[in-house]
C-alpha cells in the first residue's frame, strides 16, 4: 500500500486525471440536481466514455460522478423541495424550510460542507479498511465464491422495494440474461439463436444504459406538460460561521459514521442512511423540537450520511466483488471493461490503479466542496431545463454510448430492448437494479456452482457444511434474506417512509 501511495503523485498529477475528476464532479452535481436523473443513470451513461481513457482517470471520473450526484441532489431538495435523488429526500424537510425563511444559501452551504466532510471521511475509511478486507478473498475457493454470489443476490431482496418476491424474480431474470452466450466449460452457445453477437453474452453496459437511462426517459414521457417548479429565493450567508460549524461538527461526524456503516452493508443505500442519521441527529439534539422547522442540523445530518455511503459502498465492491447497490453494480461494470477484477489482486497486482482511484475519490470529495460552493447557486437554474431538451440528449447519449463500447449497432438494439424491459419492470413493481446485480454476479455464481459440484465428489451438502467460511456465508445469506422483513418492521416503527430502495442513488 505505502509503495503505491509513494508513487501516487506521478499517476494523479496528469492533465487527463485532473480534467476527468473535475468533469466528474461538475457533471455529477448537475446530474444529481436534475430531478429525474440519478447517479445510476449518470454513471451508466458515462462508462462508455471511460472505456478509451486511462483506467485511473476513467474510474476516478465514475466515482466522482457517484459522490457528486448524491450531493447535487440536495440542491434541488433545498431550493425547490424536489429531491434530485431519493437520498436527498430527508434534506428537504429542513432545507426547504430554511429556503422559505430566506436562508436558502445558508442551507446550501451547510449541505456542501457536510457532504464534503461525509464523503471525505468515507474515502479515507475506504483507503484503510479495504486492503485488510481484500486479504479475506485469498481464502476463497469455488464454494465460497458461489456463496458470495448468492449472498450478493440475496441483497436483491433488500433492494426490492415493496415486493421481496418481485425483487428476487427480477434477480433471477438477470441470471437468465447472464445465461446467454458461449458456455465457459463446454463451449456450447446457449440461447444465442444464431446471432454471432450474442456468443460473448449480452453486453453489460448497453443493458445497463437501457435499464437506467432509456427507461427513465420513458418514465419522464408520462409527465409531459407538468407544471414548472418554483425556485426558492436565495439569500443569507453561504458558509456557516466558525461557531456554527463547531456546533454542527458532532452531528456531521456521527452521521458520517452512520453513512459509512450503512454503505458497507450491502443493499442499504443513501436514502436509508440519510433517514437513519436524521432520526439519530434528532434523538441526540438538545433542540429536537426544532427539526422540521428549518434547523441546520436537519440538513447537516442527512447530507453527511448520504455522501458517506458512497465510500462505504465501494468497500465490499472493491474487496469482495459484491455490488451492494445499483450504482456499485454499474461501477463494477466500469471496472470490468478496464480488465480489473475485484478482490485481492486489485490491492496487489493493480495497486497503482486502485490506490490512485481511491485517492482520486478522496480528492473528488474535497473538490466537490469547492466546486459546489462556487456553482450551486447557478446549478439550480439548470433544474429549470425542460424534459423536452433533456430527453433527446439522454437518448442520443445512450445510443452513442452503447455503440462506442464495441463499435456494434447490435448493442444499440440491446440497449433499446433493455430500455423497454426496464420501463415495463418499473411500471409493474419489478425494479431493474436487482437484475443488473444478477447479470454482474451470474457468471461468478455459475462458475462457483459447477466447480464445487466437481470438487464435492457427490456430497455437495457435506462439502459446503465442512468449510467454516461457507458456514459464515450461509449465515450471512439467511441474515440478508431476513433483513428486509426486519428493515420494514423497523421503518414502520420509526415512521420512516423510504422510497423504492433500488433507486436510492
Amino acid at each position: 500500500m505505502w509503495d503505491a501511495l509513494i508513487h501516487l503523485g506521478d499517476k494523479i498529477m496528469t492533465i487527463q486525471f485532473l480534467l476527468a475528476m473535475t468533469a466528474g464532479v461538475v457533471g455529477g452535481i448537475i446530474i444529481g440536481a436534475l430531478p429525474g436523473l440519478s447517479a445510476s443513470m449518470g454513471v451508466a451513461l458515462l462508462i462508455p466514455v471511460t472505456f478509451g481513457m486511462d483506467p485511473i482517470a476513467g474510474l476516478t471520473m465514475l466515482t466522482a460522478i457517484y459522490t457528486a450526484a448524491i450531493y447535487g441532489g440536495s440542491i434541488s431538495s433545498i431550493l425547490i423541495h424536489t429531491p434530485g435523488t431519493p437520498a436527498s429526500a430527508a434534506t428537504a424537510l429542513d432545507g426547504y424550510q430554511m429556503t422559505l425563511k430566506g436562508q436558502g444559501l445558508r442551507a446550501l452551504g451547510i449541505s456542501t460542507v457536510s457532504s464534503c466532510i461525509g464523503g471525505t471521511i468515507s474515502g479515507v475509511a475506504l483507503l484503510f479498511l479495504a486492503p485488510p478486507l481484500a486479504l479475506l478473498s485469498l481464502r476463497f475457493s469455488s464454494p465460497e465464491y458461489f456463496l458470495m454470489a448468492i449472498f450478493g443476490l440475496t441483497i436483491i431482496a433488500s433492494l426490492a422495494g415493496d415486493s421481496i418476491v418481485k425483487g428476487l424474480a427480477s434477480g433471477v431474470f438477470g441470471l437468465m440474461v447472464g445465461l446467454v452466450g458461449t458456455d465457459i466449460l463446454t463451449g456450447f452457445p446457449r440461447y444465442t439463436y444464431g446471432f454471432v453477437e450474442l456468443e460473448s453474452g449480452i453486453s453489460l453496459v448497453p443493458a445497463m444504459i437501457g435499464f437506467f437511462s432509456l427507461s427513465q426517459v420513458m418514465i419522464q414521457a408520462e409527465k409531459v406538460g407538468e407544471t414548472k417548479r418554483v425556485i426558492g429565493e436565495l439569500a443569507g450567508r453561504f458558509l456557516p460561521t466558525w461557531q456554527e460549524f463547531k456546533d454542527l461538527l458532532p452531528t456531521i461526524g456521527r452521521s458520517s459514521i452512520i453513512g459509512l456503516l450503512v454503505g458497507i452493508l450491502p443493499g442499504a443505500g443513501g436514502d436509508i442512511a440519510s433517514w437513519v442519521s436524521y432520526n439519530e441527529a434528532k434523538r441526540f439534539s438538545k433542540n429536537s423540537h426544532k427539526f422540521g422547522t428549518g434547523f441546520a442540523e436537519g440538513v447537516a445530518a442527512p447530507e453527511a450520511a448520504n455522501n458517506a455511503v458512497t465510500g462505504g459502498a465501494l468497500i465490499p465492491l472493491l474487496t469482495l466483488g459484491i455490488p451492494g447497490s445499483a450504482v456499485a453494480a454499474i461501477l463494477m461494470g466500469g471496472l470490468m471493461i478496464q480488465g480489473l477484477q475485484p478482490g485481492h489482486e486489485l490491492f496487489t497486482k493493480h495497486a497503482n490503479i486502485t490506490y490512485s482511484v481511491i485517492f482520486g475519490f478522496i480528492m473528488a470529495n474535497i473538490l466537490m466542496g469547492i466546486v459546489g460552493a462556487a456553482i450551486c447557486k447557478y446549478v439550480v437554474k439548470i433544474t429549470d431545463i425542460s424534459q423536452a431538451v433533456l430527453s433527446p440528449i439522454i437518448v442520443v447519449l445512450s445510443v452513442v454510448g452503447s455503440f462506442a463500447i464495441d463499435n456494434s449497432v447490435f448493442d444499440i438494439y440491446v440497449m433499446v430492448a433493455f430500455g423497454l424491459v426496464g420501463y415495463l419492470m418499473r411500471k409493474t413493481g419489478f425494479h431493474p437494479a436487482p437484475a443488473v446485480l444478477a447479470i454482474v454476479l451470474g457468471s461468478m455464481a455459475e462458475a462457483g456452482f459447477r466447480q464445487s459440484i466437481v470438487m464435492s465428489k457427490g456430497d455437495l451438502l457435506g462439502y459446503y457444511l465442512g468449510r467454516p467460511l461457507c458456514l459464515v456465508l450461509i449465515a450471512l445469506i439467511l441474515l440478508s434474506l431476513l433483513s428486509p422483513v426486519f428493515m420494514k418492521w423497523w421503518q414502520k416503527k420509526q415512521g420512516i417512509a423510504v422510497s423504492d430502495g433500488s433507486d436510492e442513488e
Partner: protein
Amino acid sequence: MIMRKNIHHDLWIGVLMCLVSVILLLRTEVMPAGAAQFPKVILGCFIAFGLWIAYKGIVKTLLIQKGHEDQVKDKPLALKQMSRPMACLAGVIVYVAIIKITGFFVASTIFTLLFMKFYGLKSLKKMLLVTLGMNVFLYVLFVMQLKVQLPEGMLNLM
C-alpha cells in the same frame, strides 16, 4: 366471471414468466449436460416465482372485481398512461433504424429536432441551438478524443 379488463397485471406477468421459462427449459434438451445444469436451476426458480406472482395476481384480481380496490397496493396498469412512453420508444427505434442509412449525426439531428417537437418545444432557435451544441459535443468527445468510428450510413458511402 373474471372480466379481462379488470385482470391485475401480476397475473399476466406470472403466466408470461412461466411460459418463457418452459420454452427456455425445452431448449436445454439440446445442450450438453454441463451447459444445461445451471439454466435448469435458474429457470426452475423463475417458474416458482412466476407461479407465486400469478397466484398473487389472482388474489388481487378477485379483490378488484369484488370492489375492494383499496386493498390492492399496486393498482392495475393503465395502458392509456403508457401511450406516450410507447410513442417515445417507437421514435427511438426509428432513430436507431435510420442510423444505418443516414449515418449517426444526420439521424441524431433529425431525431433530436422531432423529439423536442413531440415534447411541445416551440422555440425553433432553442431547438437548433440544442441540436447543434449536442452534435459538436459528441463529435469532439467521441470522434476526436475517443477515436470512435460512429456509423456513417449508406448515404455517405454512395
